[in-house]
Structures are given as structure tokens and as C-alpha cells.
């Protein structure tokens, strides 16, 4: 039976990985991801998890080691953050086109310079196009549930793609809160053993990672893109089944008090909960404000998003990332593309907030809504605005 416990979110994630009975964890320490892999190495040391914990000498090697492990046919996990994720970057593009279903939890954190250990989404936005399936967790329960979901989806033979679960560093990873931890029997019912389509085996030798000449490179990349898009069906199915088994339902795009809303906040990750409180406060003041939360970031659920947000007049998108020189923040850009030439589409404004651990509060959301409504009344020159930046 599932057990409701007060537990640090990182440790709950580690519990999920342990319940998934992974074969290999390769990780390098970086704040704020460390608690996850520390806990896993402890489980391995105490015989609670029968796996190889490979304490690699860098994140680059962590991901490389995971590629080898997954190619060998093992259930494989790693976690990372920030600079570490950037150091992995070269390798991240490889297991996705090679269809190696590694699962990674990223405790999202800012990028240097200046060095910052605190939370935002810059690290993962840099890795937007690595071709992994990506979800964002709002709270500890989701972090736990989505980690199990990630193994289930990634390793599905129709999918066979690596998957990232994003959890906000510190503001989620280091919080102790009530989380329902499923037991082994429940997890076994949801997560079948990993049966790879291909594995490195001298009895049936294959070549993985050959040279792609111009005549095949495009086809290889399109095959990957198509597989990523097609994965959505499996993602949804796996969420449906999760709901049937354990009662918690997840959707690629979720709304909060959005039905009659004229202005919709758009969030990803743990600020969504604060945003709900902000929506309640604004509703109390009679404002028609709602919230749309993106849970599935890649493949982007464009259709679901249009359905969830299409009736609003204004979308106030919170980008946890400042893209220097770009017309707009990355989430804002995607949404503009999603609504391009859609009749009656909402006006979309991007607000850069919560960089490098700057707190995102109820007041922040109130300010954003006010600014978005003001921008909607005129033609703003900038498509994004940095919230809470001091001028002097």
C-alpha cells in the first residue's frame, strides 16, 4: 500500500528510481541535484537497490556512461543541473537519435556567469532541442509520479527515447512535504521490466552509432522527430493508466480557473502552485484571471494548448530564462508559433521572472497580469519584459 510521508522531494525522486529497480546510476555531484544521487548511492551501499552506482569524473562522462549502459540493455538513470547539464550537452543529442531510453531528473538551476546555484530554467532551455521527452513537475508528488512515468514511457518499445523530468532546484528539490510513496507491488503493476529492442550482445552483434552520410542524416533526424511526436500517445496512455491505478491524473496541459478567464498566466514547474494562489487572490478582486500549466514540454502539446488557452484574450507567459538578443523568451516563442495565424488567437507576452533564485511571489503574478493587460491595450515594442529588475 502507498504510504503518505513527509519527505524531501529529492529523496522521493530517489525512492521512485529505487522502486523502478534501475540497473545503473551514473552521476557527478552538482548542486542542487546531489541529494537524489546521494540517496541512491546509499541505497546501493545498503543493498536496498541492486544496481551499479558509477561515480564518474564529470557530467560528460555521466551521460556517456549512461549511453553505454542503455545500449547494453540496462535500465539507466542519472540526475544533473546547470553547468553539469551544459557539460553533458554534447552527448545529450546522441542517445535520443540512437533511441536509448535513459531517464534523467534535472534539478533546474541558473547558468553562469555570475555563478548561481539557485533555481531558474536556463539550464534546460539551452537543452530544448536535444530530442528528449521532457516533463515539468509542480510539486513533490508529481516529481515522484513523473519519475516513474518517465521510465514507463521512455522504455516503451514504441517510444524508446530518453526522458527528462524537470524539478525546480531548491524550491522543489530541497523541500520537505507530504508525498505518497507507492509500494513495490504497485510500481511493478505500473512499470514492466525493460526489454530493449536492441542491445549490445556478442551473440547478435550490431553496430550502434555509425557515420551518417548526407544521404541518410536527414532521414535519421526525421525518424527521430517523428518518434518524438508519436510518443505523445504513449505518454497520455501511461498517464491514464497511472490515474486508473493510483487516482492521480496528469495531462500535458493543465488549467486552473481558466474557463471564463480573459487573461491567462502560463507557467511551468513549481511556480504554478504559487500562481494558483495568485489567481485565487485576483479572482477575489473580481478579475477574470486563470492559469495554464505546461506539464509536457517536449513533444510540445500544441493542440492541447490551443484548446486550453485559445479562448483567452491575453496570455501572460512566465519564462524562467532570459534569452539575450532573442525576440522573446523560449516558452513565449513556442506559444507564438502555436497560435500563428490562428483566428482570434490571444495576444501573447513573455515575462522573464525568477532568474537565479529570485523569488516568484503572489505579488509577482499580480504585477505580470497587470502589465500584460496594459500591453494588450497598445502595441508594445518589446515582446518580453524582465519582471522585478532594478534600474538603479
Amino acid at each position, binding site marked *: 500500500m502507498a504510504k503518505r510521508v513527509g519527505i524531501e522531494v529529492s529523496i522521493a525522486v530517489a525512492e521512485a528510481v529505487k522502486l523502478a529497480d534501475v540497473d545503473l546510476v551514473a552521476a557527478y555531484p552538482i548542486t542542487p541535484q546531489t541529494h537524489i544521487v546521494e540517496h541512491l548511492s546509499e541505497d546501493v551501499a545498503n543493498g536496498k537497490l541492486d544496481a551499479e552506482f558509477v561515480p564518474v569524473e564529470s557530467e*560528460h562522462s555521466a551521460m556517456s556512461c549512461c549511453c*553505454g549502459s542503455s545500449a547494453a540493455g540496462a535500465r539507466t538513470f542519472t540526475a544533473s543541473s546547470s553547468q553539469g547539464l551544459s557539460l553533458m550537452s554534447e552527448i545529450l543529442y546522441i542517445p535520443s537519435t540512437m533511441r536509448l531510453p535513459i531517464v534523467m531528473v534535472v534539478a533546474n538551476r541558473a547558468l553562469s556567469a555570475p555563478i548561481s546555484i539557485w533555481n531558474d530554467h536556463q539550464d534546460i532551455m539551452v537543452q530544448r532541442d536535444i530530442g528528449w521527452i521532457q516533463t515539468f513537475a509542480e510539486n513533490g508528488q508529481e516529481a515522484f509520479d513523473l519519475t516513474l512515468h518517465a521510465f514507463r514511457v521512455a522504455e516503451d518499445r514504441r517510444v524508446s527515447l530518453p526522458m527528462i523530468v524537470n524539478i525546480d532546484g531548491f524550491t522543489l528539490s530541497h523541500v520537505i512535504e507530504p508525498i505518497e510513496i507507492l509500494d513495490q507491488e504497485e510500481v511493478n503493476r505500473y512499470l514492466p521490466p525493460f526489454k530493449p529492442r536492441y542491445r549490445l*550482445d556478442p551473440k547478435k552483434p550490431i553496430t550502434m552509432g555509425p557515420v551518417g552520410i548526407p544521404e541518410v542524416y536527414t532521414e535519421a533526424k526525421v525518424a527521430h522527430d517523428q518518434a518524438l511526436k508519436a510518443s505523445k500517445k504513449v505518454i497520455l496512455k501511461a498517464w491514464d493508466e497511472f490515474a486508473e491505478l493510483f487516482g492521480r491524473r496528469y495531462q500535458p496541459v493543465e488549467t486552473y480557473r481558466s474557463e471564463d478567464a480573459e487573461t491567462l498566466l502560463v507557467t511551468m514547474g513549481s511556480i504554478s502552485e504559487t500562481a494558483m494562489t495568485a489567481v485565487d487572490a485576483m479572482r477575489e478582486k473580481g478579475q477574470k484571471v486563470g492559469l495554464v500549466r505546461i506539464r509536457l514540454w517536449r513533444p510540445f502539446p500544441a493542440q492541447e494548448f490551443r484548446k486550453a488557452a485559445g479562448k483567452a484574450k491575453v496570455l501572460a507567459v512566465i519564462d524562467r530564462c532570459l534569452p539575450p538578443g532573442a525576440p522573446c523568451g523560449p516558452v513565449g516563442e513556442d506559444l507564438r508559433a502555436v497560435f500563428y495565424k490562428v483566428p482570434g488567437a490571444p495576444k501573447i507576452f513573455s515575462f522573464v521572472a525568477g532568474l537565479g533564485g529570485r523569488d516568484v511571489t503572489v505579488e509577482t503574478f499580480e504585477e505580470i497580469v497587470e502589465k500584460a493587460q496594459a500591453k494588450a491595450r497598445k502595441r508594445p515594442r518589446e515582446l518580453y519584459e524582465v519582471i522585478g529588475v532594478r534600474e538603479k
Partner: protein
Amino acid sequence: MIPELEKFKGFTVKNLPKDEPLAPGHRACQGCGEVLALRMVMKALGRNVIVCSATGCMEIITSPYPQTAWRVPWLHIAFENAAAVASGVEAARKAMARKGKIPKRHVDIMALGGDGATGDIGLQALSGAMERGHDFLYVCVDNEAYMNTGVQRSGCTPYGAMTTTSPPGTESFGQYTWKKNIPAIAAAHGIPYVATASPAYFLDLMNKVKKAALVKGPAYVHIFSPCPTGWGSAGERSVEFAKLAVDTRIFPLYEVIEGKYILSRKISKPKPVTEYFKGQRRFRHLKDDQIAYIQRRVDAEYERIARLAEVS
């Protein structure tokens, strides 16, 4: 001594394996000494091996999609990470065998890289994998420059050699640093087996590779691999240069077994280095004083290893 090695009888000209785990039709240059070395490596290992290859000539020429020259399972991820990838394969198989997910049958795990992939960009991954004690062998096929990208200098390019990024000019005589000693770095990790080898001495090479596979834990074999394209030498002379490098003491053949140095070939009457330089365009510009300096240092390096072999 290492029990696995004591049982090993060794290859002789009488029992050389006929099987070719690496298929013909690969796209290596005419007279490639590196693919020749690799062919010998694979003959020694047989087919019960998983190969993790770094980016480089050997990777490019053996895996032109939709074809492959590999008759064994082979994996290429990137340039600098062959050792890390191999460590993942090794550790994953260990866990899966323990958990009954795959048969408990031993399979050799080999990481393969050129000198750049091994000693420059991949040194950290190599060091990490050796330090962690994975049961694998690392084979470096050293052709002394970045040949795949068009002959740029590496840390393993020999002193004085001309490459496209160590050109001799009015202010330069070519590579101005001495060849980086990767086998010594490997040995400094305290791993059970380190060796140097040359395809000219093919039995020695194959026996060392087999020993490296047999020992438990990390093993490292550094193989001298002539590159006619990069060196500006005649293709038919590749084996000859591989032999001359040994016979001039430029590339001494030795093993380091559990820290003990053993000279595989005592070169008591060395040929002068000029004999090795002749016929290689990369050394053509060298002047007498530079050659004299190289000769002195080559002798000193050889003596150093010979002394290590005497004391250990």
C-alpha cells in the same frame, strides 16, 4: 603475479586465429598502419567482445551507414568519451548479470581511441574509468596526430614533426614539445596491466592485447600506428616504419604488470633515428642539431625505461 596471465599460453605463428572480427571493405587509406593494428587487436580478442569506439579514423572507416566492418557489437557515441561509454557497458552488464537479466558469461569490453581521443580530449574520461577500476581494456592506436581532421598536431605528435598546426617556418621547426607519455600516465593509475606494442611485432602485439583482456580490472595498450597519409610516407613502408620506431628505440616495447616494468625487446644495437626519419615528409625539414638532440633524448628515454625494468 596475475593468475589469469600465467594460464595464458600465447599466440605463435602456428596458432594465429584465421577469423577476422573486423571485415574487409572498410574505407581505410591504402597502407594504413592503424587499421592493420586494429585488425591484429581484433584477431587477438576474437568475437566475444563489445567495442566502444571513439570518434576518429577507425570509427569513420568502419561504420559507413548502412554498412559496418564490425562483426562484433560496436558502439560509438562521441570523441572524448570511449572510456566512459565502456565503463557504462561494463557496469551495466555486471548489474544485469547479477540480477539474472543476462547470462553470467564473461564478455570482454574494449574501448578504442586514437592518440587525440586518448591522450588529449579523452584523457579525463580515460583517467576516470581506470581509477574506478572497471574491468575493461583500453586500446590506443597512436598515429601521432589528428589524422581524421587533416593532420593537426596532438600531444602525441613527436618532437620536430611537421603537422598542419605545427608547421616548420622561419620561427619554428615543427612540433616543439616532446611526445606525451600516455602509457606512463596509465601506469600511474596503478592499474594491473599496461603495454606498448607495434604492428611490426604482431605476435607481441596480439599477446599483449589478449593479456590486457584477460586481466581483471583496467588494462591499457598503446599501439604505434603508422599513417602514410599524415606522415608523408609510402604506403608499402608502414610496417617497416613500425619496426624502425622500435629498432631505433624511438618507441620502446614494454609491459607494466602490476607496476613492474618489463622490456619486451631489448634494443642493444639501436639503429640511428635518421634511418627512421628518412622517407617521412614530416621530418624532412629537421636540421642536424635538432636530429642530434632527438637522438640524445630518445636514448635517454630508452635508458630510463630499461632502468625501470632492471629495478622492478
